[in-house]
């Protein structure tokens, strides 16, 4: 990683010495997740061995998959220095529309199109509020979070809308014994990781998140990139919705209620820096699995769901604290 000094080695006044390689590799927030991922099975094997069945882990992850999928894109948004709390709501709205139009007799392909376009619109609306009206994304997307789910409720009331029989059971289709939704998340993770790591787009996402003003001065199209990110997240929320309802065969306005916390949690646990500029797809991906596996353990242990609430809340705060701490130490 480190190249041999090009200029005569700098003295204290010119530059601080570079961090040793082992630190660069090991002292990073994602390690918290990795650690937990190693510890959990060990603990579980003692207390809740039933939760460690691989098939069980794979099949239950299909319930987390939609949120994980959105969390992966959300990671990019957060790295770019913004945040979006509305995806879970837009997932519910698009999914309700998806089911409703099909019940109204709209052919499947058209339904998919409508759903995706709607997702795009919802994403662009967030972008409009954040990028063009310059509203703080945290508050603005709290507004759309309430609004989008509200619309879903207006549309569907309290009724659950059924989907066509044949469309059900995506999670029961397996390739090499792995349920399709899990694979979708895996593929998405790989693609996004490449986008973030190997392309100029990903590079500029980091640069915007690190210092937006500097990015703008350097000729980076900050606005269009952020808009792209919000729009993508909107579309992905629609796709996630379609994936989710295929597993349920039905949809109600409360689909993925409160999912925003889990998504933010995945990103934070994965070591994404809440103030932007730092983070990794791998981290979010691992965090997604960690959450799913831990929830399994707690469910098989029949813990009060409340304790799971507490754990999520505490994990969120702890992971941010650790992330901030590590970054504040490794950046001078």
């Amino acid at each position, binding site marked *: 990683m480190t190249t041999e000094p090009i200029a005569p080695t700098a003295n204290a006044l010119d530059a601080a010495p570079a961090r040793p390689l082992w630190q660069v590799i090991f002292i990073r927030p994602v390690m918290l997740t990795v650690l937990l991922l190693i510890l959990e099975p060990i603990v579980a094997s003692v207390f809740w061995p039933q939760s460690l069945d691989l098939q069980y882990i794979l099949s239950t992850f299909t319930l987390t998959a939609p949120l994980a999928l959105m969390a992966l894109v959300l990671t990019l948004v957060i790295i770019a220095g913004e945040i979006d709390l509305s995806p879970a709501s837009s997932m519910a709205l698009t999914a309700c529309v998806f089911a409703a139009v099909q019940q109204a007799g709209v052919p499947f392909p058209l339904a998919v199109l409508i759903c995706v376009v709607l997702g795009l619109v919802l994403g662009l609306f967030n972008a409009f*509020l954040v990028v063009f*009206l*310059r*509203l*703080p994304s*945290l*508050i*603005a997307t*709290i*507004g*759309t*979070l*309430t*609004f*989008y*789910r*509200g*619309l879903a*409720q*207006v549309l569907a*009331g*309290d009724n659950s809308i059924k989907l066509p029989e044949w469309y059900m059971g995506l999670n029961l289709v397996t390739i090499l014994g792995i349920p399709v939704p899990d694979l979708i998340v895996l593929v998405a993770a790989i693609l996004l990781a490449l986008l973030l790591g190997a392309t100029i787009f990903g590079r500029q996402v980091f640069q915007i998140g690190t210092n937006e003003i500097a990015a703008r001065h350097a000729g980076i199209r900050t606005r269009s990139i952020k808009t792209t990110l919000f729009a993508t997240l909107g579309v992905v929320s629609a796709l996630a919705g379609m994936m989710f309802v295929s597993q349920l065969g039905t949809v109600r*306005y409360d689909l993925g209620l409160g999912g925003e*916390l889990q998504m*933010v949690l995945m990103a*934070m646990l994965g070591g994404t820096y*809440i*103030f932007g500029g730092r983070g990794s797809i791998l981290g979010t991906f691992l965090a997604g699995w960690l959450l799913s596996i831990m929830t399994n353990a707690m469910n098989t242990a029949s813990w*009060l*769901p*409340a*304790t*799971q*609430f*507490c*754990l*999520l*809340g*505490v994990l*969120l*705060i702890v992971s*941010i*604290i650790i992330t*901030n*701490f590590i970054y504040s130490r490794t950046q001078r």
Partner: protein
Amino acid sequence: MNAVKSILLRREIGIFAAIVVFCAIVGIANPRFLTTDNFRVILLLMPLVMVAAMGEMLVIIARHVDLSVGSTLGFSAMMTALMFKLAPGIPWYLGFGVAIGIGAVLGLINGAMIIAFRLPAIIVTLGTLYLYRGLTFIASDARQIDRQFIPGPLKAMSANSPTYALPWIVIIAVAVVLITYWFANHSRLGRQVYAIGSNPAAAPLRGIPVTAVTLAVFSISGALAGLAGIMYASRWAFVNPSNTGWGFEFQVIAAVVIGGVSINGGVGSVLGVVLGVLLLSCVSAALPLLGIAGTVQSAIYGLVIIIALVIDQTVRERGILALASARSARP
């Protein structure tokens, strides 16, 4: 002469106008909306949100936000109710002390974490939103506390039977509003809250004890949420681990933002927030009278929040321009 004040004033007049127009429309659609009877209904919808909104207002003026008010309300309400259940003999008014105290502590915890680790309030309080809710479940063993455990006098405080001119919880809310008004405009600490929100970087250089003020603000917000908690026990005469205060934060934030409190800190008035709460209460009271399903409520809240945010942004930007061009007198 005082441009910012006048802008805000215009802003408050705007909300007031919105309320009048809304009431007029609903009144035409259904005259019963304008009866004293319905006025009581609206009046009784306001107190809880009003009290919590006063705290949230201060937090947002200080350029933070508190998402955990709902869970704080739930937890303090539950603890108070548990106290009544386990120690039936205890004087009912002690409940206020307990609820407010617990609320203050929860708020303090929020503030402490935000200060100690320099974290964004929104994420911390998003975490504690779930943490406090979870604790409520655990503390109550996920059991609802039924009305027979809520002391009679406490329940009576929100009775709007004709024998009461104004129910007590309304009077409490009014008192909180007046105190908050004094605090925000005439107390040293209150002004420091505005200062911090107005220019966080400058505050420490000006010798403003940022840490202390921030902690104070979050404690106040928590304490008021706690007060709202026992008012909940009084109003609904039961406390439920999952229902009580669930989603309450959205109503509160909506009210505050509609009230013209700037999410960029430093700007906001008690009067505005009061009007914001009033507007929301009118909306929810109107729905059943118009035969609109309750399911549209959250959509309306969301929409109203967004509109308010947009207005806030545009108004402020125009205001700044107006001020910038209005250069001060030079010799």
